[in-house]
């Protein structure tokens, strides 16, 4: 186990190099000179273009720029945006917010999704089962931005239950609505997985035995059925946590969440290479760790899986 973790952590190094290189080349491939954008509709003189390109190393060949960036990173400096802000600071500012949002979304999935899945599983074929299937499937068949707008309009403005956008400091209460929207996207999976798992577990001998011993449903369901059904659900939620950190761009934009996705989108529009590469690389690293956690979770939750090597 220990060596397995060490090995996976060491794999992080080539992943880091590979992803920075890949992302760097991707940003490099986007046509368009970021310098020209800085002047709006005015066209700068060739001298100004040249001077600014030199300032941001845009005149250097691709590999040189890449190594300049890497050199900075190894000194703990993730680069500076064209606006002169430190990327470290931007990440320190935005990352906690995104993390909180993702956490909240996962929590909502855990509570609502698992509960709905449990009821569906226990009353298989009942009205609730069918209703849950249709509602959750409808939720994934709607594009995220439509869902976000409708939620913002209905709950934020018509009903006034939430602030339509996230206020300064991003308090937890403001994050609930965007978290619900994010949670809705994965809800179908959580409900289906829980349901299937509950059905399977319920048929096990130890459950029948528990009932046979005369234990009440109140005790059997949470202790025997639910606990043993959580393996696939937990791993799915862990994976989703990773995805949420990476992919909340649209939702963050609509609800004005000052998070990583929002910042990344602006950086892409600015062609801000150091910022894009740093943000995405951090996301890759986070994702790699989440995946490691998932794999370890498998081992912890299911004793049949062991990591020997």
């Amino acid at each position, binding site marked *: 186990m220990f060596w397995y973790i060490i090995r996976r952590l060491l794999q992080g190094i080539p992943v880091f190099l*590979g992803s920075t290189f890949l992302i760097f080349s991707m940003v490099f491939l986007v046509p368009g000179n970021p310098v020209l954008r800085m002047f709006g509709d005015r066209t700068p003189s060739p001298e100004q273009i040249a001077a600014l390109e030199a300032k941001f190393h845009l005149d250097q060949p691709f590999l040189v720029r890449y190594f300049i960036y890497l050199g900075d990173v190894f000194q703990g400096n993730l680069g500076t945006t064209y606006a002169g802000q430190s990327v470290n600071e931007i990440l320190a500012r935005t990352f906690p917010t995104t993390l909180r949002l993702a956490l909240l979304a996962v929590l909502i999935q855990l509570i609502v999704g698992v509960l709905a899945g449990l009821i569906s599983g226990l009353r298989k074929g009942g009205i609730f089962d069918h209703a849950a299937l249709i509602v959750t499937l409808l939720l994934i*068949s*709607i594009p995220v931005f439509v869902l976000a707008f409708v939620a913002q309009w209905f709950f934020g403005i018509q009903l006034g239950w939430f602030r339509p956008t996230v206020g300064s400091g991003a308090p937890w209460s403001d994050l609930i609505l965007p978290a619900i929207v994010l949670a809705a996207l994965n809800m179908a999976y959580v409900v289906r997985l829980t349901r299937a798992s509950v*059905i399977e577990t319920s048929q096990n001998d130890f459950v029948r035995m528990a009932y046979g011993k005369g234990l009440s449903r109140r005790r059997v369901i949470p202790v025997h059925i639910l606990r043993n059904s959580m393996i696939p659900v937990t791993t799915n939620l862990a994976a989703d946590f990773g995805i949420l950190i990476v992919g909340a*761009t649209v939702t963050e934009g609509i609800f004005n969440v000052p998070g990583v996705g929002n910042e990344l989108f602006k950086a892409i529009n600015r062609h801000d290479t150091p910022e894009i590469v740093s943000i995405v690389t951090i996301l*890759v690293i986070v994702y790699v760790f989440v995946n490691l956690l998932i794999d370890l979770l498998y081992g912890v939750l299911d004793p049949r899986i062991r990591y020997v090597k």
Partner: protein
Amino acid sequence: MSSKNPVRTAPHFVAEVDEGGLGAVDAVRVSDRKSNLWLDAWRDLRGRWMFWVSAVFILFIVFVALFPTVFTQVPPNDGCILTVQNETQAAELGVPVGTVISDHGPLPGHPLGFTRQGCDVFSRIVHGTGTSLSVGLIVTVIVAVMGIALGAFAGYFGGWIDSFLMRIGDIFFAIPYILAAVVIMSMFLADRNILIISLAIGFFAWPSTARILRSEVLRVKQLDYVMASEAIGVSKLRTMFSHVMPNSLAPVIIISTVGLAGAITAEATLSFLGVGLPANIFMSWGNDIAQAQQSLRTAPQVLIYPSIALSFTVLAFILLGETVRDALDPKARATR
């Protein structure tokens, strides 16, 4: 487990099973794994109404995509007007000259009303079917091919190949598809088309398929018949293609239908972000939904209709996937 055990009639090549009362002899209890998965699944599917509803709906959608002009004669992109300008148009639409057509409700010949640009909503939905469906299918193929190939190699060969491919998968998966889309759509600016946008969506979506196939391969390769195959000297590669892969594919087929749904909504999201297909060259539901955001408050019908088309199509594919999943999963079948 329910009271009935899974009992299945084995194929009998000597005589008809019913002949001579041998049926009872042939009826052996078999383990779920060794039965013919596909045939059983089909038998099971035939009896499910959800399968038929979704399949018929999908066939209908495909028909609309192939022959849009059967359903509407109104061009989706030409003759879009913001206001009624002259008597000819006024007579055609049955409203006075000067009426604002942009975001207008239904008029004779235009059952679902007009978009912000004054184009016919119904016609745009019908003509957009092909684009949305093609994007969904092409993405699914790209994801399935890449995911299967890389997942199978990783799972079967294990070791450093496994680690290498899976870490590549981590990288690709963590790259936000908005970044990928901006890069790819910018590079192919002049000839943005369905294939390009499908590539932008699909090229970075394969890792989850690969992960699933890999874990399935890991399970299958422990099974006796794979060991047997290797034991009798069949090459590793050959074993993989003829024994491991076919038996690992079921879950991929299932998640592909969900992925197809995801691709159709992803196309919508890319349009919303401004890196989708150009709206007045390609009709697509995603494009129309993205544009309809502008007038959501004043003309909700412009948003609602393409959303309904998209949701129903996506729902049909997901339901199909659900039923196929149930049919392929012997446990679920047994307990039904």
